[in-house]
């Protein structure tokens, strides 16, 4: 059963809504990276990159550990799997709507006279 109040999912989708953060996740999918490695291809300052990573951390998509002055980031797969499951479920509902519309259209076609309800345009 799909849950409609889901603040954790809300954080995931907010985190994913920014292209820079999606790019960072793409890099992290390859393995652990430090913050400078994440910032460089985006031509971003260290503090700006750190701010984005903080959003990803709050969504539990990324885990950061600090060793001296190095910020090492690692991707966490589970919240993304949750988000995809959510997406898939909604896509399925939508496709079911259109499948039902297909069925209704078949029914309407098979009627020799389509009855128009009163007041129809």
């Amino acid at each position: 059963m799909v849950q409609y109040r889901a603040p954790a999912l809300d954080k995931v989708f907010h985190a994913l809504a920014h292209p820079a953060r999606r790019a960072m996740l793409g890099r992290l999918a390859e393995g652990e990276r430090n913050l400078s490695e994440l910032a460089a291809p985006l031509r971003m300052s260290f503090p700006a990159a750190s701010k984005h990573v903080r959003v990803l951390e709050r969504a539990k998509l990324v885990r950061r550990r600090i060793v001296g002055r190095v910020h090492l980031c690692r991707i966490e797969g589970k919240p993304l799997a949750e988000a995809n499951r959510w997406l898939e479920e909604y896509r399925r509902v939508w496709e079911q709507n259109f499948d039902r519309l297909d069925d209704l259209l078949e029914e309407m076609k098979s009627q020799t006279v389509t009855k128009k309800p009163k007041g129809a345009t």
Partner: protein
Amino acid sequence: MKNTLKVVTRGEREIVITRDFNAPRPLVWDAMRQPEFVRRWLQGPPGWKMTACDDDQRVGGEFKWAWVGPEGQEMVIKGVNKEVVPPERVVRTETFEVGCAPQAGEQLATLELADHGATTSMTITIIYPSKEARDGAVASGMEKGMAFNYERLDVFLATNPSKPN
């Protein structure tokens, strides 16, 4: 023959949804526009019941779709019809509300039906007020249970969050 649903982003603020139907346009128009037909196929998520399906199809007329959930929660999609050209085009504004949550903003949705004789192709174009609204809607709109609203579902389908940019 099963028709496929396609969803793409276009430019900075738009999302476009397309699907074909195996029926002539006047039938597709009626099935999509007459509330008694719409109730037959536009269902909410499992366990949700439609409580309102109203559409004043004149220019300036309001439409409203409402559902109630298993725990009494309310979901409403409503707006104003700006253009209605049967059987080919509807342009309307849309807003979405869940319970007491404030509206996330308003978008402009255009439904177009193209006549191909025995079949019809549907195109829905949604324009968001800004790039952020479109991209943000893709991510944050999901929590509010919009699957049944095909005009908003596009936002969910237009992003695959697990793929890097």
